[in-house]
């Protein structure tokens, strides 16, 4: 037996608990951020269902609205909305780490990149609001 094999036998490998992500606030937030993508997927599906209902005419749309007001669906969508906010805020704040933006040879500060994303979100939201209410 070689020395490294002997050493390997004597090493102690600590087991990792299934609940490792509850040990630290940052780990927990990370897992919630990952989980938020499921709720994003649900809201995309929900939007597609809404568009389909609109496409099928007034009766289908009224039917969709009727189902949308059920307490279960309202509760689910509220939870989903909370996760969407978490998703947006956490990813926006991570962007400057992943992207280095330079303007005229100078590095743009992280706060500006984050601010630009919120500004972009505000512009798109305002456009959608105008589209729906005009």
């Amino acid at each position, binding site marked *: 037996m070689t020395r490294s094999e002997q*050493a390997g036998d004597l*090493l102690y490998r600590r087991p*990792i608990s299934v609940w490792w992500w509850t040990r630290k606030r940052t780990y927990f937030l990370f897992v919630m951020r990952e989980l938020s993508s499921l709720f994003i997927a649900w809201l995309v599906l929900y939007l597609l269902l809404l568009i389909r209902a609109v496409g099928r005419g007034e009766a289908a749309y009224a039917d969709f609205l009727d189902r949308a007001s059920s307490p279960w669906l309202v509760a689910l969508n509220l939870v989903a909305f909370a996760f969407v906010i978490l998703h947006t805020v956490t990813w926006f704040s*991570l962007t400057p*780490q992943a992207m280095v933006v330079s303007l005229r040879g100078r590095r743009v500060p992280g706060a500006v990149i984050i601010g630009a994303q919120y500004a972009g979100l505000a512009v798109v939201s305002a456009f959608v609001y105008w589209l729906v209410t005009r």
Partner: protein
Amino acid sequence: MDDQISLRVTRYRPDKDLEPSWQDYDVPLREEWTVLDALNHVKSDLDTTLAFRWSCRMGICGSCGMNVEGEPRLTCATFLSDYAPGPVRVEPLGNFPIARDLVVDIEDFMEKLPRVKPWIIRDEEQSVDDGEYLQTPEELDAYKQFSMCINCMLCYAACPVYGLDPDFVGPAAIALAERYDLDSRDQGARERLDVLIEHEGVYGCTFVGECTRVCPKHVDPAGAIQRYKLKAAQQSIKAFLLPRALQS
């Protein structure tokens, strides 16, 4: 302030123990003492059998990383008084196998580090007579942050991805790859990309960001990894859209 604080230290004697256990030591609580000073006090005055790694005592060598109260820290830069009244839990760095007491086996990291070729690669080495490779201050700034890594492995201890999948190349190695990629004297980006776009390379990372939070040198390995992903993705899109442009 009490004049004593209790250190709760992991003990593991590979020839005797099947698993680690705790041992408590009472040490003087001095304002200027770090956790490493307390361990050295234990070693010299209380129990000579305690094993741990250390060298420089000033955050340069990267040897004294341990988990203090569950957080990966350089023990030479972690003050006892911040944990008063105690006890202070001191464990071996997380995610690495324990060799003895507070000493972990770093074989895996030592094997991974050279895989990303963290040295300057040139297509053609210029002769010594031609002088040194010159660099502007801006070119130095481009990679300086990533060159501060001292290989202390705190980022590996903090990374849940590495804990769950030990094949992951890991934060420090990828940050070092980025350090050489961003160096104006280097021409080895292509070679490193081949290693890092594999499944266990950058795409293993899910951007937990804990590596950056625990880094004592503010290297930001998480940032380096995400930039690498962006670069790799841009490369793939370019190769798909402009296959001929890349060949020339």
